[in-house]
């Protein structure tokens, strides 16, 4: 029998609020352990939570971007379980009445797009971190992250392949980053994903027994873990075994998943409404206010780029992969309206340099004005394309503008015909054998002559003019 996979994802995204979800401690990453704490996030006796309005605003942004219905009244609930990184031994989360439900986002699929349903988006607080030192008989607890606001985005089981799952994850990631509510850093854990996967016979409507996969800290690992799990379940079913409902841990070093806990061992979280927090009312006015401030979303921007700038879909995809990059492109294009040229430069030169510098903000080193100036110098023939690339690298490294680099390095292109013609004549005069060969039909030697002139000018000769002059001079000899 042929099986198809049914995949649903649960994504946790850390919100970029300045303070924690229920107290005023900073959320800054990397501070001295336990320094970002107060009696409230330490779960001292008698303390009470007060909800951070900013976290609500951020969640509403995401809910709107995912086309969700926002519940006018939602509730915080306590999820009860014991762990030393959870000082209250319960997590404030949402359960029966989440903030938002019934949404969807679109992902690219083949030539078209596919809608992936969003079951719910709810708010909760993060736990702290345990640090284990195997040489010691105890572990360390760092509660800096305790109480940092999170949202959990639960998808419908709408994905059928690991590729679709990765596309969905990337789309969510890109929306979160576009909305400026999450930094999307998977390695530091500010964007985390668990996956549910089951198999069912092709064409069947029912659902098979699912396993939950954990510990996948990159897009690639999510894809790898899902593929491994689909293969494993396929083999199990093919050999007549049953799939057991369980939670499985992905091991990035082996690419395999292994059983972590069975259904029977699953926690009973004993959810109930948190009596310390009133039902959360979200007014229609507040939602409309947030909606009016929503930025253009990645998919909308991509489509607009294709239409407005007549760019290939691929270019538009790359340029809109980050809001900063898209902004950079648009600003440059406003100054230098040849969109495809700008696109090429941004996609190849700028992205290459950014990647090398491990930088995600394109404007940190060069501005759109600087790139537009450079492209104009090229158009005017002041610099060649090749020189422009060298200059751009210099601009990126030093932050200086094109004209000053050109001036300082004497990089101005030699376009003076008289000067170049004498160099052309000299080159031909010094290489009579090659000239003879050329004249006897070996015309590919033209490149060799161009090279000689370029060498004589240390690369500054305008190649188009050199070409033209060579053809003229060689023509005289024929």
């Amino acid at each position, binding site marked *: 029998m042929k099986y198809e996979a049914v995949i649903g994802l649960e994504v946790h995204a850390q919100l970029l609020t300045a303070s924690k979800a229920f107290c005023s401690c900073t959320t800054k990453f990397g501070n001295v352990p336990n320094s970002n704490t107060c*009696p409230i996030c*330490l*779960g*001292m*006796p*008698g*303390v*009470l*939570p*007060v*909800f951070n309005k900013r976290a609500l605003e951020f969640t509403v942004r995401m809910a709107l971007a995912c086309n969700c219905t926002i519940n006018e009244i939602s509730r915080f609930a*306590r999820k*009860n379980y*014991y762990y*030393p990184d959870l*000082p*209250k*031994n*319960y997590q404030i989360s949402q359960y029966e009445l989440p903030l938002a439900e019934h949404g969807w986002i679109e992902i690219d699929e083949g030539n078209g797009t596919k809608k992936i349903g969003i079951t719910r988006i709810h708010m909760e607080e993060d736990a702290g971190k345990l640090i284990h030192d195997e040489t010691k008989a105890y572990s360390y*607890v760092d509660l800096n992250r305790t109480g940092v606001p999170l949202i959990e985005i639960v998808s419908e089981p709408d994905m059928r392949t690991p590729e679709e799952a990765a596309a969905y994850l990337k789309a969510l990631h890109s929306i979160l980053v576009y909305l400026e509510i999450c930094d999307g850093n998977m390695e530091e854990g500010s964007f985390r994903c668990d996956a549910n996967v089951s198999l069912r016979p092709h064409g069947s409507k029912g659902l098979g027994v699912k396993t939950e996969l954990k510990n996948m800290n990159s897009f690639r690992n999510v894809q790898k873990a899902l593929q491994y799990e689909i293969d494993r379940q396929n083999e199990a079913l093919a050999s007549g075994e049953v799939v057991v409902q369980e939670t499985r841990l992905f091991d990035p070093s082996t690419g395999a998943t292994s059983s972590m806990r069975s259904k029977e061992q699953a926690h*009973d979280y*004993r*959810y*109930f409404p948190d*009596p*310390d*927090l*009133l039902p959360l009312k979200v007014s229609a006015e507040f939602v409309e206010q947030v909606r009016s401030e929503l930025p253009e979303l990645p998919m909308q921007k991509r489509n607009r780029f294709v239409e407005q700038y007549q760019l290939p879909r691929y270019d538009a995809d790359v340029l809109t992969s980050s809001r900063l990059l898209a902004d950079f492109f648009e600003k440059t294009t406003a100054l230098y309206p040849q969109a495809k040229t700008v696109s090429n430069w941004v996609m190849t030169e700028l992205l290459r340099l950014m990647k090398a510098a491990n930088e995600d903000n394109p404007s940190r080193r060069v501005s759109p004005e600087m790139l537009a100036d450079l492209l104009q110098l090229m158009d005017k023939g002041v610099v060649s394309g090749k020189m422009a690339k060298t200059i751009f690298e210099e601009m990126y490294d030093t932050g200086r503008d094109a004209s000053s680099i050109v001036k300082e390095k004497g990089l101005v292109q030699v376009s003076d015909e008289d000067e170049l013609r004498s160099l052309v004549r000299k080159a031909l005069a010094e290489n009579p054998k090659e000239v003879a060969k050329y004249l006897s039909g070996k015309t590919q030697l033209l490149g060799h002559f161009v090279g000689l002139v370029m060498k004589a000018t240390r690369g500054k000769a305008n190649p188009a003019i050199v070409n033209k002059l060579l053809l003229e001079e060689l023509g005289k000899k024929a």
Partner: protein
Amino acid sequence: MTELYEMTAWQLAEALEKGHTSSVDITRSVIKRIEAVEELIHAYVTAAPERALEMAKEADMKRARGASNKLLGIPIAIKDNMCMKGHRTSCGSRILSNFVPPYDATVVSAMKEAGMVILGSCNMDEFAMGSSTETSFWGPTRNPWDRDRTPGGSSGGSAAAVSAGEAVVSVGSDTGGSIRLPASFCGVCGMKPTYGAVSRYGLVAYASSLDQIGPFGKDVRDLALLLNVLCRHDPKDSTSVPRQHPDFTTVLDAPVAGMKIGLPREFFSKLDHPDVERVMKEAQRVFHGLGIRFVELSLPYLDYGIAAYYIIAPCEASSNLARYDGVKYGHRAADFSNMIDMYRYTRAEGFGAEVKRRIMLGTYALSSGYYDAYYLKAAKVRTLITQDFKAAFKKCDAILCPVAPTPPFKLGEKIDDPIQMYLTDVFTIPVNMAGLPGLSLPGGLSADGLPIGIQLIAPHFEEARLIQLGAAYQRETDHHLARPSI
């Protein structure tokens, strides 16, 4: 001559204003009284006389500089579940027996702001779970009227302290009757304000949706003074209601003629103690004499109050008390071989029997598969009780009923029979379930000379109406002037 410790806050405030005494003198008098009778009563877990004297000196200096608010320099005792920076706050439990909070509860800040002298923290049932102050890790408090009897609970220490003159006034917390019952048993006044009127920030939680802090005093006038300090919106408590509270002292002399008081049939039909019946009848006569009319009420859902309470409160408690695990503060078991054992031994050693019973009740009731049948059902009953009261208050301005079915019972009498102990709170629990304000007033003595309280209940945020009725009642009676002889 009347000693300073015997006087009310109001009387002391007037003496202070006239310069007849000082806060230091008052505080010294109270400390002397504590030294004399504390051994017999055990009202305190942690008394801090030296710090109290420092606070008294400061209050006198403030007064010398012109400060003049009514409670400036008046000694008060808090309950051992209210956090005070640098002061051990154990909640009557071994598990917090070494816990010193790094912060002040909002009510403690308010007392300090008012310049009150904080004497120390009073004994209580462990985590406020109990009706007799016998479940305290520190041993029971004794009733000043009869030291073989309980002071009621859970705020037994706070009530006994005022009754025995070990504090001028005090505060307690009331989740199912924990202020009103000990007030009744100790012959003092106590009020549980509306849920949301007083900040819970810094009150070690038992059942968060029911807990409320309130005052104890020798008379209603003192309660009014304290309510002025306690009732205020606190942004640190999301369940604190933003509203303007009146000056409660302005209604102290207001007439009550023409008001209507409701008598719930379900409560009065349960009375089977002759002394309690007599006291209730006499109270009705007094109110009648004040020009008040009575209406008989039926509040059928009140009968389910205890059943629903013993689902909701333990559910919340099971979660609230989960944090006491030995990881961060408080007691930690000495011997364990792994983390789970550390949790288990710490909690097994740290909590007493009643607390464990309620943690288990709540954990069970919240478990998957039982939630709908227990928690959800109890929450619905709670709504029905609230609706019963709302309907009742369309017919009357306040409700009169007993505080407890009996006068104070003996130490040890009910401690091994949890159901009997729970039934003590049959008249007080519904008030918490509905979040209403309730006032407990001395209503007379039993044939054995033991105090019996009467209870007045008002609609949400009508504490002033309770003060008004209570003050009128005390103008006509002198039950509140009776003192135990120790």
